[in-house]
């Protein structure tokens, strides 16, 4: 494995050196220019994909960042005589700060954020173009950059530009690879699939989006800086036109925007084919054809060339590999009801133990609707608290305010003594609170293993990548999903998805686990299995709050039961006494029986 890695590393290094020396081989100057353009588009498309492909926020304003870099380099080098190489970091910095400014506005939005992001980035390029056009930066006359002195790295200026373009391209691809395989990348993939869940699983979504946007824009800015010398003459209409945003989107989507190499493949294909239509009417037909390819590609290969190819290859090798082997063993029910000897409503139910979560007068209203009207409740370490109540009584809202998904209207929630009601959801997840969703919300484009590994990586224990995969496998074993680890969530049935939810919550190693109707929709055997699992989890020391309609399971599992009704705590106590309480019977069980 390591030898293999060393060989491929050496191969890449050799290829880069050969590419760098290519202009010295005496090819016609045409090739310098052609290859530069391919590198240029690969860098731009890949930089776009770091936010828009990985994180799913489509930017239509890549021209703004690219153009900011172009004009930074042009202004600094032409008007202030700054050495060309020094202007490139400046171009990257200007573009990155512009992105951080835009991101700080739009990434705070809760609704329509994808669409508004696309529009705002579009708007920013219009505003920037207007400002540059009407101020001395350009003034409408354009800037002549062909006289900017280039460093003498290569014998001729065009060869130097080639080399800079190539280095930029290699650097961008390396950065995209690193991001795709880092925590940031994992977080971005999760944001792409379901941002709210990502936040609740511990991904600092706001910071991650901002970081990805800044990286993406910085690369575009630096690429623009190099390009300023390539074009020789800058005009606002060319720089901020629709070409750059159109082509980067098209190239990335064609190649596969979620894969680090996808945009490069798409860019190489399209840049090469565009080079054949360079003049006059042909250029126009070329644009039309490229647009047609975009439409067909999105309709037929919505995931792009590289991911489609990888999936095809995986299926092909899997077929060859599994054919001679015996079929995979059916998963053992990993959990046997070992905790069954423990009486559910034992006297040592944990009332004397320290308080894990203290809720004080928690209120939450949505407009005129009061979902929680002052709930006060202590949850003790190591107990299983059953949370019941009729539909609309505020059970799920209570979970949502504990995890920080909704801010409290008033009141206080303390976890281990520290107030958490003002913390962002990802911070609460870090402190050891995990939840499952009543309707499973897996990350649809991540494999079962990655779904769980992602939660492990961002959960309360800070695992590295390898450790989080190991941790994830442990919980897949525990829930009996190990055999499906490379499947996508869409291939799982409801029971398996519910257990995936559970594995994802457990791999975060929570101190407090909130289970929202994990049993609903399961058949009696599956319910027995799930009850046994929940007992085992508690035996590991985890505190569990457990929302459920299924009374058999509630009575069997809970140390105490809390009954919510119309947003208030209606009854609290041992299962036996609460269930005999005539008020509870009339309010809750009466309705349940009637249903």
């Amino acid at each position, binding site marked *: 494995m390591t030898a293999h890695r060393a060989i491929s590393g050496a191969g890449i290094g050799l290829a880069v050196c050969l590419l760098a020396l290519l202009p010295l081989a005496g090819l016609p100057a045409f090739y310098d220019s052609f290859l530069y353009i391919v590198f240029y588009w690969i860098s731009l498309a890949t930089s776009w994909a770091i936010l828009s492909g990985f994180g799913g926020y489509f930017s239509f304003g890549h021209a703004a960042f690219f153009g900011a870099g172009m004009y930074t380099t042009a202004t600094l080098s032409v008007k202030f005589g700054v050495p060309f190489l020094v202007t490139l970091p400046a171009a990257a910095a200007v573009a990155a700060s512009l992105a951080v400014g835009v991101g700080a506005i739009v990434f705070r939005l809760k609704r329509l954020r994808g669409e*508004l992001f696309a529009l705002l980035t579009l708007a920013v390029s219009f505003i920037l173009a207007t400002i540059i056009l009407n101020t001395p930066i350009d003034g409408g006359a354009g800037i002549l950059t062909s006289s900017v002195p280039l460093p003498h790295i290569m014998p001729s200026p065009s060869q130097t530009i080639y080399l800079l373009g190539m280095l930029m391209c290699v650097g961008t691809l390396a950065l995209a690879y690193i991001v795709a395989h880092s925590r940031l990348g994992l977080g971005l993939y999760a944001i792409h699939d379901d941002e709210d869940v990502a936040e609740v699983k511990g991904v600092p979504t706001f910071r991650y989006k901002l970081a990805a946007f800044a990286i993406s824009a910085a690369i575009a800015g630096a690429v623009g800086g190099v390009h300023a010398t390539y074009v020789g003459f800058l005009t606002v209409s060319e720089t901020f036109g629709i070409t750059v945003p159109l082509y980067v989107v098209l190239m990335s989507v064609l190649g596969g925007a979620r894969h680090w190499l996808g945009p490069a493949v798409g860019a190489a294909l399209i840049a090469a084919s565009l080079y054949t239509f360079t003049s006059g009417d042909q250029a126009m037909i070329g644009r039309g054809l490229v647009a047609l390819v975009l439409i067909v590609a999105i309709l037929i290969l919505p995931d792009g060339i590289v991911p489609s190819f990888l999936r095809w290859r995986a299926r092909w090798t899997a077929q060859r590999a599994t054919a001679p082997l015996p079929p995979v063993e059916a998963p053992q029910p990993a959990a046997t009801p070992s905790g069954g000897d423990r009486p559910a409503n034992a006297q040592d139910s944990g009332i004397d133990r320290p308080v894990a979560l203290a809720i004080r007068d928690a209120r939450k209203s949505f407009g005129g609707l009061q979902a929680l009207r002052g709930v006060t409740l202590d949850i003790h370490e190591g107990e299983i608290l059953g949370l019941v109540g009729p539909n609309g009584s505020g059970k799920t809202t209570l979970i949502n305010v504990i995890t920080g998904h909704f801010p409290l209207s008033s009141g206080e929630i303390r976890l281990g003594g520290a107030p958490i009601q003002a913390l962002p959801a990802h911070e609460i997840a870090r402190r050891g609170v995990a939840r499952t969703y009543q309707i499973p919300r897996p990350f649809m484009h991540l494999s079962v293993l990655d779904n769980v590994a992602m939660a492990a990586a961002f959960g309360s224990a800070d695992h590295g990548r390898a450790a989080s995969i190991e941790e994830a496998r442990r919980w897949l074993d525990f829930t009996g999903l190990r055999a499906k680890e490379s499947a996508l969530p869409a291939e799982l049935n409801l029971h398996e998805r519910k257990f995936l939810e559970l594995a994802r919550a457990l791999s975060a190693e929570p101190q407090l686990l909130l289970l929202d109707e994990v049993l609903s929709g399961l058949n009696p055997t599956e319910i027995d299995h799930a009850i046994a699992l929940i007992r085992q989890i508690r035996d590991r020391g985890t505190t569990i709050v457990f929302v459920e309609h299924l009374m058999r399971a509630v009575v069997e599992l809970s140390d105490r039961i809390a009954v919510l009704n119309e947003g208030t705590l209606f009854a609290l106590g041992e299962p036996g006494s609460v269930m005999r309480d005539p008020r509870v019977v009339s309010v809750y069980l009466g309705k349940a029986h009637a249903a």
Partner: protein
Amino acid sequence: MPSFTLLGQSLVSGVLVGGLYGLVALGLSLSWGLLRLVNLAHFAFAFLGAYLVYQMGTSWHLSPWWAVLLIVPLFFALGVVQHAIFLYFRVVELTSLLVTFGISVIIESALQWIWTADFRRFETPYASVSLKIGAMYVPVVELIGCIAAAGLAWATWAWLRWTYVGKALRATAEDPEIAVAFGVNQRFLSFLLSGVCAAYAGIAGAFIALISTLAPSQIWAWLGVVFAVVIIGRLGNPLGALIAGMLIGAAESVAMATFSPAWAPVVSFSALIVLLLWQPDWL
């Protein structure tokens, strides 16, 4: 500081131009708000309509008012065909943005192929006629455009609010599955609305032909300001689109008169950014 008359004049022409923004925004707002499809090709459709009106006017001497009667059914059919493709390939919100981006570029190339990239002006006898009200001049064509925009916006609003079809459309936008469960024929309604939106694009195109100069690249000139109008006017709200269009038109026009015409684009986008920062409940 410009004179009071100049300010008043720029306010009037701004509101009139804003009516046209509202007219272009109308179809876009409806398809985005009610069908969850972001139809970038709406602008390209409008310009296609504008060029058709121009062509019929110059080569057949057909009055634009008659041309609109031909344009409306033609564009309705165009909208239905586009929607059939969307449904067949299960196009969703973000993909629709990309696909219609591609459609726009193809239409732009086709326009350039047929009518070249030159700017063209549709000369009509009434193009330069103005009413003089007090000290203000009101160009007749723009006034008619503004009245048409207001009429369409109001009619659409009434249609959505009071008719069965309108209520069913709004219900579908809220929750398609529940609406279908209550017997709403979602497929039929979505085809109907797509056709209507495209027809609105055609009507807007006729006024674009009458009021402004045509060039294929102008498709993109409208994009930014109209999207700002759609968002400020609230998605799927026809009257909102009209009012937002007039406000932005007036703001732009006053900005042009007080500062410099070149700065006008900054006004609408700044309004959009301020709105995003403010985040009112109705957004």
